[in-house]
C-alpha cells in the first residue's frame, strides 16, 4: 500500500559519514578487526565512497583537486536481482516495497551478494563481537517471530545482511499507530540515517502519495538513479550536484 523511497541531494551532502555511523549503531552492525577490514570485510550498510560517474578521469592535479562523494544505502529495487536468486526465500520484498532480510532462514550461500550489481549486501564471516563498552550499548529493538529474525537484533555468524531502511522503526511506528487506534501516517517513520543527516540532504517518504517530499523531488531535473540500464528500477534517488 506504500512504496518507501529515499532521495539524497548530493549538492547538500558534505560526506561527513554521520549517516554511515548512525546506521551502524542503529542496526548493530559489528566492527571488524583492521586486518579483516583490509580484506574488505568491514560492514558498512550505508557506505560512503567516491562518485563513480566521472571518477574514471580522476579529479584534477594538486592543488586544484576535486573529489565528489556519495552515500549508497540499499536501493530497495522494484525488480531486485537478489530476491530472484535466493533459494530459500530468506530475502523478500514486503507489501511496502522494502527488500527485507530474514536472518533466521538465510543458509549463507551468498548467491544474493554475488547477484546484486550495487554490492549492497554484506556477510557475517565470523561470529560478530563488540569490545566491552560497545557491547552494553547495542540497540535492543527486535523484529522477531516464529522462524523470523529481522531488524537490529544481533545477527548470527554465516548469514547475509543489508540496509533495510530501518525496518524495525517502521514496525514500531505501525504498532504505535495501532495502539493509539488511528491509522498510520507516513511521516512517523524515518530511517536513522535520514534523521541524523547534518546537511538535511536526505529525504524519505512514500512514492505513492504524490505530495510527499520524495515524489516531488523525484520529478526534479537533477534527479538520477544508479545503474538504470541494469533494469532493477532502484527506489533510492540521487540529486545531481550544481
Amino acid at each position, binding site marked *: 500500500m506504500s512504496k518507501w523511497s529515499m532521495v539524497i541531494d548530493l549538492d547538500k551532502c558534505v560526506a561527513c559519514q554521520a549517516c554511515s555511523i548512525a546506521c551502524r549503531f542503529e542496526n548493530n552492525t559489528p566492527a571488524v578487526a583492521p586486518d*579483516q577490514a*583490509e*580484506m*574488505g*570485510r568491514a560492514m558498512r550498510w550505508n*557506505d560512503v*565512497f*567516491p*562518485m*563513480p560517474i566521472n*571518477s574514471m578521469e580522476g579529479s584534477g592535479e594538486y592543488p586544484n583537486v576535486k573529489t565528489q562523494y556519495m552515500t*549508497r544505502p540499499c536501493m530497495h529495487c522494484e525488480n531486485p*536481482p537478489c530476491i*530472484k*536468486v*535466493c*533459494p*530459500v*526465500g*530468506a530475502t523478500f520484498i514486503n507489501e511496502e516495497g522494502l527488500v527485507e532480510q530474514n536472518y533466521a*532462514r*538465510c*543458509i*549463507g*550461500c*551468498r*548467491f544474493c*551478494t*554475488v*547477484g546484486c*550489481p*550495487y*554490492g549492497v549486501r*554484506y*556477510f*557475517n*564471516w*565470523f*561470529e560478530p563481537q563488540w569490545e566491552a563498552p560497545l557491547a552494553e550499548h547495542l540497540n535492543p529493538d527486535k523484529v522477531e517471530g516464529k522462524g523470523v529474525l529481522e531488524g537490529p537484533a544481533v545477527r*548470527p*555468524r*554465516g*548469514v*547475509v545482511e543489508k540496509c533495510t531502511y530501518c525496518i524495525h522503526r517502521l514496525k514500531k511506528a505501525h504498532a504505535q499507530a495501532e495502539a493509539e487506534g488511528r491509522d498510520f501516517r507516513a511521516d512517523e517513520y524515518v530511517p536513522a540515517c535520514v534523521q541524523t543527516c547534518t546537511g538535511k540532504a536526505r529525504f524519505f517518504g512514500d512514492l505513492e502519495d504524490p505530495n510527499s517530499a520524495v515524489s516531488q523531488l523525484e520529478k526534479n531535473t537533477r534527479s538520477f538513479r*544508479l*545503474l538504470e540500464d*541494469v*533494469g*532493477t528500477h532502484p527506489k533510492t534517488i540521487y540529486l545531481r550536484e550544481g
Partner: protein
Amino acid sequence: MRPATSYHPQNKNEAVILAPVRRVTFEERWLWAILLGLMGLGAYAYLTQWNSGLGVTGLNRPVYWGIYITNFVFFIGLAHSGTFISAILRLAGAGWRKPLTRAAEAITLFSLPFGVGSILIDMGRPDRVLNIMFYGRFQSPLLWDITAVSLYLFSSIVFFYLSLLPDIALCRDRLTEAPAWQQKMYKILALGWMGRPEQFERLERVLDGMAIFMTLLVVTVHTVVSWVFGMTVQPGWHTALIGPFFLVGAIFSGTAAVVIVLAILRRVYHMENVLPVSLFNSLRKLLIVFTVAWLYMMIAEFLTASYGGLADEMPVIWQKFTGDFAGLFWTMALAVFVFPILIFVFLGKDHIGWMVTACVLINIGMWIERFVVIVPTETRPRLVSTLMEGMGNYTPSWVEIAITVSLFAGLTLLYVVFTRFFPIVPIWETAEETAETELPPVEPRRKVFGTRQSL
C-alpha cells in the same frame, strides 16, 4: 531353491582383471593411510571453519565465491567423463569403449559426492541446509542445481550398479577364498543374479534406455550448474554461451581424467592386453576434437564480448587478459589448449606417457579456467568505485587449500578401495562374443552371447 551355479560369459582376461581383487599388497595399505591422513587434514580444516565461521577462508567482499565454488564446478565437470564415455559412446555403438566404461563411471560416482560436498562446505550456515527442502524457491537457479545434481548422482549410482551386477555375481562364485564378510557382501550385492540369457537381455535393454536418459542428464546438469552464474546480471557471467561453454569444458576435462585413470590402472595392474594402446589412440582422437571445440567456445565468448566493448564488460576482460588474473589466464590457455594439442597431434600416437602428461595439464588448466571464470567478475563489479583501494583481490587461505587437497585425496581413496574389492574392467561386457562384425554405428545392436559355461 535356486539352481547351484549361475552362468557367466567366458572372458580370457578374467584372471588378469580379478587379480587386484584377490591380493592386497602392503603398499596399498600405505597408500590408504596417506590418503586418510590427507582427508583428516581436510576434516580438521573444515572443523576450524565450522567453529569460527567462513572468516578463516580468504573470501571477502566483493569476492564472495572462490575456491569452494571452483571445486564444485570442477568435480561436477569431472563427473561427466563416466557418463559421457559409457552412455554416449554406447548409443553411438563404438565398440572400443567397452573395457573402459566401468573405470570411467567410477570417476563419475566418486567425484560427484565431493562436488556436492564442496557446496555444503561453502555454505555459511550448513546446519540450516534443510531450509532448502522446507522453503525451496524454484525460481532460484540453486534449486535447479540441487534437483539436477541429486538426480544425476542417484541415476549414475544405479547406472554404475547395474553394469556391475553380473561381475559381482562372478566374484561371488569365483572368489571362494576371500574373507567371509567379503563373500557375504558379494552375495547381498549380487541380488541373486543368475546370469540367465533373459536377465542379460533385459539388462542390456535397461542400460540402453538409461544411456539415453543419462546423456540428457549430463547436458542438463552441467548447463544448470553454469546457469547459477548465467542468471545473474554480473558482467562476466551474464553471457548466453555459459551453458554450452561449461558443458564442453566438463566433457573435455572428464575425458582427460579417464585417460589418466586408465593409464594408472594399466601400469599398476599390468592390464596391457585388456586396455590396449588402440584404446588410447581412439581416446586421443576424441580429445583432439574436444580441445578444438573448447578453443572455439573461448573464441566465441571473448570475441563477441571484447568486440562489443560495453563499459561494464571491458574491466572484467582486461582483468583476465592483462589485470591481476593475467598470469592464471595465460597459463590456463597454454595448459588447456596449446601444449595438449601439440602433444596429441605430434607425440600422442601410440605413446601413453605423453597422453597422460597432456591430460594432467588439461585437468590442471580446467581447474584454473573455472577459477578464472568465477573470480574476476566478482573483483570488477559494475560500481567499481565502491571498492576501497585494498579490496577486490583474493588470496585463498590454508583452510581452503587443505580442503581442496583432501577432496582430491578422498576421490583417489574411494577409487583405490573400489579397485580392491571389485573388478575395474567389466568382465561380462568384454567377454568374447562370437566375432562381432563392425556394424554401422547407428544400427540397433542385438548381441548373441558367447559359449555358455555348461552347468
